[in-house]
């Protein structure tokens, strides 16, 4: 049974040459990762005007619909914009390739063959590789150079299950789990430095280890939304939504004269 009264004496040189260097290296590598990802990002591909018009038409109708129950524009404006958009969506005037021909089968472009979507997926994969490789390298470095000795004592207790992971390389069956090796210091830093990165590099930084936890293929989703989607179907669905919103429409300023008069008490409530 290990007694907590006896404590190990550790050489201060371990502190100087292992503890601080590992932390320093991890901070610097994190900052390096962040800037490498920024440099590796290619600027977003410029879409041709017709494609942008198609996307913007969808956004315009969504904006119009968003405030339809409490709308700031008056009835004639709202209804005219809404009807104009509905007709355009029905006829397909905003589509990138023009109104669909009556006999052409409408199939969405295959994401693997569409070059635009491929670029998006490659960019996502590149950033994932950049973020995973330094972590593997540092772990290998630590396992090679800093193995076989006790580094630090954890101030909190852990179960025996952690012993194999945290005391790797130290063959002492009944030493307290709180005395750990360098690899566990690596793990502590791995989780604990995210806050520091957020402070130094800003909120949306690429050095954050919580982002590595998400599946790689979640980041492989095409960056420009809608390039692999069939806009014809989308616009038709949007037309139905527009008609629904038109039914729910009500102007903010409706009966505003009555409301103002009532607020100032100039109107008897019986009228």
């Amino acid at each position: 049974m290990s007694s907590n009264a006896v404590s190990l004496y550790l050489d201060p040189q371990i502190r100087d040459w292992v503890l601080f260097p590992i932390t320093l290296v991890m901070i610097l590598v994190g900052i390096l990762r962040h800037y490498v990802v920024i440099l590796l990002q290619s600027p977003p591909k410029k879409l041709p005007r017709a494609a942008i018009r198609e996307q913007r038409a969808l956004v315009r109708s969504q904006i119009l619909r968003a405030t339809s129950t409490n709308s700031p524009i008056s009835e004639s404006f709202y209804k005219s914009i809404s009807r104009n958009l509905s007709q355009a969506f029905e006829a397909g005037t905003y589509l990138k390739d023009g109104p669909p021909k009556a006999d052409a089968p409408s199939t969405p472009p295959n994401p693997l063959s569409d070059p635009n979507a491929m670029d998006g997926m490659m960019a996502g994969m590149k950033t994932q590789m950049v973020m995973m490789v330094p972590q593997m390298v540092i772990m290998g470095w630590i396992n090679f150079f800093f193995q076989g000795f006790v580094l630090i004592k954890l101030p909190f207790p852990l179960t025996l299950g952690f012993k194999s992971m945290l005391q790797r390389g130290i063959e002492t069956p009944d030493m307290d789990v709180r005395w750990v090796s360098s690899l566990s210091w690596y793990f502590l830093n791995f989780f604990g430095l995210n806050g520091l990165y957020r402070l130094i590099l800003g909120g949306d930084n690429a050095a954050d280890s919580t982002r590595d936890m998400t599946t790689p293929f979640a980041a492989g989703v095409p960056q420009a939304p809608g390039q692999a989607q069939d806009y014809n179907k989308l616009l038709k669905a949007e037309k139905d939504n527009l008609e629904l919103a038109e039914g729910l429409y009500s102007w903010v300023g409706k009966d505003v004269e009555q409301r103002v008069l009532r607020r100032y008490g100039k109107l008897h409530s019986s009228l």
Partner: protein
Amino acid sequence: MSAPNPDAAAQRIYLPNVQHNSALMTVKFLSACFTGATAGILGLQNWLGFALFLASTLSTSACIYVINCKGRPAKYMPGGLWELVNPGQDNMFSFVLAWTLFFGIVHVYD
């Protein structure tokens, strides 16, 4: 005029102000780091250290609640009271890191 439905309530939120609320996260992170350092230097172990973290989180939140939010956190933060008090997973790990570091420097090494 109160907003009866959540959609209208969401439209009333001014986005740049919400982004400025990241200053709150900075405060939480710094307080977690200093709490870790304090716990390490004092040599607190086991549950005492976590109790100090809890106490510091509560006192920081209380200060912000009284001084900044003036008793109405729902007016300043979309998440309300829980968003004010919650330190977040990142800050928890930062506390443990700082605690371990200072405990090691002061109490383990000569």
